[in-house]
């Protein structure tokens, strides 16, 4: 028999191990994420929240909820953004996002009117952050105009900047930029699509005609 033959038999024996190399990716990842969190290494945890407006990617740091993305955003892009802007230590960890998913569920089931979640504001800066922080004070079911928002953020004439702050909102729904509308009564734009804005306002009992 040639050397090659017995090499092939050996390779076959060795490769036979590969058949059993199927693994439970979910279990492995969640065990890793749990240990990472325990050691303070889970800089960004993310999960998917199923909502009536579609699956949303939600992400939190140890400080709080840092990002929520509508279905229109490519998850890989959002994760790359988080890796770049926050930390590359980004791991899927549904358990870490349980409180966020629970509050979102309650909101969409009309059992919750405000969110009790810690927020991490680090993805917005300067006036945009001020405008978004002012947004959180707008009560459920009420709307303000872009210039009213600019005023409550401390810069009455910055209604355009207030508009772009809403457009760049990293944590939509929880930071309720859907409650900001045009002065003339028009809905204005929305990152998740105008039909989502309409849906959210409708959910909160605001008439949008």
């Amino acid at each position, binding site marked *: *028999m040639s*050397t090659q*033959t*017995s*090499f092939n*038999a*050996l*390779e*076959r*024996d*060795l*490769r*036979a*191990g*590969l*058949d*059993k*190399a199927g*693994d439970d*990716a979910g279990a*492995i*990842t969640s*065990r*890793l994420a749990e*240990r*990472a969190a325990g*050691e303070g*290494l889970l800089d*960004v945890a*993310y999960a998917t929240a199923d909502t009536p407006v579609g699956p949303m990617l939600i992400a939190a740091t140890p400080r709080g909820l840092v990002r929520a993305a509508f279905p229109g955003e490519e998850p*890989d892009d959002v*994760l*790359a953004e*988080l*890796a*770049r802007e926050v*930390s*590359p*230590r*980004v*791991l*899927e960890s549904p358990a870490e996002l349980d409180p966020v998913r629970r509050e979102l569920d309650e909101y969409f089931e009309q059992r919750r009117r405000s969110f009790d979640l810690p927020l991490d504001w680090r993805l917005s800066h300067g006036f945009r952050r001020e405008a978004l922080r002012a947004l959180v004070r707008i009560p459920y079911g009420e709307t303000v105009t872009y210039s009213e928002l600019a005023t409550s953020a401390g810069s009455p004439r910055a209604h355009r900047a207030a508009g772009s702050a809403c457009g760049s909102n990293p944590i939509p729904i929880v930071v309720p930029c859907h409650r900001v509308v045009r002065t003339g009564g028009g809905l204005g734009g929305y990152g998740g699509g105008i039909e989502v804005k309409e849906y959210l306002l409708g959910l909160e009992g605001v008439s949008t005609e």
Partner: protein
Amino acid sequence: MSAAELPPFQTFLDEHRRPVLGFLRAMVGPNDAEDCFQETFLAALRAYPRAEGRNLRAWVLTIARRKAIDHHRARARRPEPVAEPPAVESDESRDGLGGGEAWARVAELSAGQQAALALRFAADLPYREIGAALGTSEAAARRRVHDGLEALREWLGTTTKEDL
């Protein structure tokens, strides 16, 4: 976005999970592979921000190799039960690999050959990546796998294998 930018750790994990687990199954046996796997990726997570610009697959396999060595050292320090000879235990823990006897023998080769065979036949990597993971050239990796197979063949006895 620059090319050297680190992917999110989850992407990195998804990309290298299978070869690392396959490699560790061959290096420490299926029973202990998952623990070593967790240790490997936890260590990788700790050092991850400093891995920018590296060949990430070679990098994580180097960590895995170190964890396998740590595992063997810890095991060697642990007193073995008198009634249980080490050889039997090692055979048992490798049964899940299918080619149980072959892998048990691989464990007795030189550390370099063992790693090379595990990278080739359990992690299923091309020689170029094996070379990167072992810090050597593609040609040297190919040679090391070949030498490992040669040593194995002698060990297992050509007669029984060739009769198959």
